[in-house]
C-alpha cells in the first residue's frame, strides 16, 4: 500500500486524483496548501508518506518553495511536480528545487500512475554489488544497503539520484545517453524530457563532487551523455 501525499489547491482536481489513486490501491493524504502539507509531513503520520505529488501553483508558499523545504527535511522522499504550464522555466526551476520528475496538467491517470510507480521503484535495491575501484577521495557505494559514503561520511541521496548513481557506477567508463538513463532510471516508457536527467546529475554532483564544476565521478560526454569515471 504505497502512501502518497497529494498537494493540490483545486478541490476537484484533488478529489479526482485521490479517487483514482485510492481505486488503484494507494493510501492518499491530501493537502490544499504547502503549509498544510509541510505540517502534515512534520506530524505523526509524516513518516508514512512515501511520495509527494506537488502542484506548483499553490496559494501561499508556492510549489518550488515547498519542494525545497521537503528536501531540507528529507533527502529521500520522491517528489513529482504537477505543472499547469509546461513552460521551460517552471520545469527547470522545479527540477533545480529537487523534484525527481514532473508531469504536465491535465495528466491522465495511467501516466500519473506510471510516474508514481517508477519513482517508488527507484527507492528499491537493485543490481549487483560492485565496488567503485580505488578512489583517493573515498567514495564508497554500498549497493546492498543503498548507502553512499564519502570519506566515511554518509551522503543522503534522494532515490532518483541514488538510482542514477547506481546505474552509472555499475559500468564505470561506459557512456549512457540521456534517453537510456530516462528509460532505466526514471522508467519512462514515453519520450521524456532529458532535462530531468541533467537536473538530477547536477544535484548529484553538488553532493558528491569536491568541485562540482570539474566532476570526477559523473562526467559529461558532450553530445552523447554521461559516464561514471574513469577515476
Amino acid at each position, binding site marked *: 500500500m504505497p502512501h502518497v501525499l497529494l498537494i493540490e489547491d483545486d478541490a476537484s482536481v484533488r478529489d479526482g486524483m485521490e479517487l483514482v489513486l485510492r481505486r488503484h490501491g494507494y493510501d492518499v493524504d491530501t493537502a490544499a496548501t504547502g503549509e498544510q502539507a509541510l505540517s502534515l509531513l512534520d506530524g505523526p503520520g509524516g513518516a508514512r508518506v512515501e511520495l509527494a505529488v506537488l502542484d506548483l501553483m499553490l496559494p501561499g508558499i508556492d510549489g518550488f518553495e515547498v519542494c525545497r523545504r521537503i528536501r531540507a527535511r528529507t533527502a529521500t522522499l520522491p517528489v513529482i511536480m504537477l505543472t499547469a504550464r509546461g513552460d521551460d522555466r517552471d520545469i527547470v526551476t522545479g527540477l533545480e528545487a529537487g523534484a525527481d520528475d514532473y508531469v504536465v496538467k491535465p*495528466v491522465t491517470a495511467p501516466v500519473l500512475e506510471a510516474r508514481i510507480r517508477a519513482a517508488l521503484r527507484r527507492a528499491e535495491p537493485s543490481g549487483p554489488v560492485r565496488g567503485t575501484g580505488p578512489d583517493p577521495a573515498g567514495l564508497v557505494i554500498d549497493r546492498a544497503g543503498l548507502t553512499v559514503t564519502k570519506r566515511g561520511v554518509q551522503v543522503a541521496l534522494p532515490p532518483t539520484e541514488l538510482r542514477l548513481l547506481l546505474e552509472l557506477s555499475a559500468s564505470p567508463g561506459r557512456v549512457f545517453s540521456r534517453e537510456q538513463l530516462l528509460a532505466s532510471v526514471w522508467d519512462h516508457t514515453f*519520450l521524456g*524530457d532529458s*532535462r530531468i536527467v*541533467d537536473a538530477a546529475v547536477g544535484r548529484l554532483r553538488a553532493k558528491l563532487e569536491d568541485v562540482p564544476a570539474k566532476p570526477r565521478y559523473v562526467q559529461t560526454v558532450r553530445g552523447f551523455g554521461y559516464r561514471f569515471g574513469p577515476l
Partner: protein
Amino acid sequence: MSRRSGWSRGGRLVGGLRTRLVVAFVVVALLSAVTSTALAYRDARTAVLQRTQNAAVNDLRERVTAVAADFDVPPDQRALSRFASKVSDGIGGRIVVARYQDLVAVSDSLADTEARITTGLRAAVRTGSGARFQRVTWRGEPYLAVGMPVTYADGDRRASGLEVFSITDLRAERDDTAALLDSVRSGVVPVVLLAAVLALLAARTVLRPVRELGRATRELAAGDLGSRVAVTGHDELADLARTFNDTADALQASDAELREQEAKARRFVADVSHELRTPLAAMTMVATVLDEDADQLPPDAARAARTVGAETARLSRLVEDLMEISRFDAGAVRLNAAETDLAEAVRASLALRGWTDRVRTDLAEGVRARVDRRRVDVIVANLVGNALRHGAPPVTVTLGTTVTEDGEWVTLEVADHGPGLPPGAGERVFDRFYKADAARTRGAADDSGQGSGLGTAIALENARLHGGTIDAGSGPEGGAVFTLRLPLRRTDDERRTDDDLWSDDRSTREDAE
C-alpha cells in the same frame, strides 16, 4: 526594400534636381548677361558714334565757315589745295577733300580718298543742302566721311559749287566699344560660376531636406515606425516634413494599437487555455473512473461514459495545442537542443504511439544533428498521425540528408497513398484549424484520437524554431507527401543548450566508447 540607385548618397548625375537647378541658373545668368550686354553695347556704340559724328560735322562746318570767308569762287587748283589744307589744319589734321566741279584737292596728297568718299555720299552732298555723313570700312578699318556743300553766306544761301569732305578715323571709338564687349565677356565667366555656386547652394537647401525625407521614408518602409525628420524653417519643405512626421505618428499610433490588440487577443487565448486546464485535469481523472467502470454500466450509460472519456481527452489535446501555439505566438519557446541520433528518435516516436507495425520506414543510420528531441517527436507524431488518419496505407517514413547551396539538411519524408491533398491546399494545410475537404475525410479515430486542428501548424512552428521547414505536396503516385527539412548542425554553433545548464564540463569526445 531595395534602394533605388537614384537615391544613392551622391545623388543623380543626370536628370537630378541639382543638375537641373545648376543648368537653369547658368542659363538664366547667361541669358541676362548676354541680353544686358547686347543692349548696353548697342546703346554705348550708338552714343559714341553719334557724338563723334556730331563733333565731326560741327568741326568741319565751323572750320569751313571760317576758312571759306576768304575763299574766292571759282577757285583754281592751288587755291583749292590751300583751302583744303587750311580746313584740315583747323580740325586736327584730318584728311580733307575739297571739290569744285572737276577740281579736287586733298589735304594729304598721299592719302587715298576715293574709296572712303563714296559716290553715294558725293551725290547726296551735291543734291542736298546740308551736311551728309557716311560710315565706311576701308582696309578693314572704320572711317567716318562727312561732306557738305559750301553755301554763300549772304541771304539766299545758294550753293557755291564748292564741296568739302573730311575723313575721320573711327578706330579709337571702335576700340572703346570693343573694350566694353571685352570687359563684359571677361565678366561672363565669373557670373556663370557664381550662378552655378548659387544654384548648388539652392539645390543644397532643397536637397538636404528632400534627402532627409527620403531616408526617413526608407526607414519607415523598413519597419522603423519611430523614424522622424527634423523640421526647420517655415517653407513648403518644412510643411512636407511636418506632414511626414504627422503621418508617421498616426501610423505608429495605429500600429501600437493593433499590436496591443493582438497581444491582448494572444493573452486572452493563453489565459483561457490556462484556465481550462484545471477543470480538464479534474475531468481527465474522473473520466478514467468512468472508463474503467463502463463495462458494469447499462449500455447507454456505458456509451455515454466512454464518450465523455474520449471527448475529455480530445479537449485536453486541444487545450494543450492551444497553449503551445500561444507560446509560439508570444515568442516564449526555447529550443532545448542536444545531439540526437535521428533514426533512433523517429523509431522511438513511432514505438511510443504503437505505430511501428503500421508504418514502413527507410531510415538512414548514423544521421546525428543538434535538435530538440521533444519537438522533433511532436513533428513526427503530427505528420505520421495525419498520414495514418487521412491518407491510406502504406505510410512510408524516409530519413535522409541532402546538400543544397545553403548547407546540409536532414530530410524526413512522410508519404501516404491516399487521395492526396486537394489542389492548392499545400499552403493552407498548415493553417490553424484547416479542415481538408472530403478527399481527406476524418477517418476512424485511432489511438491518438482526432487531431486538434493545430497539429500541422505546431509542427511547422517547431520546424521553423530549428531553422527548418515543412513542405506539403503530392507524391509521384498520388498521395500526400510531407517533407521536413532541418539544418544538419553537428556543432553547437547557435546557442548554449541545456547541456550546459547544469554541467560546465567542457571536455569533448569525438566518439562514444
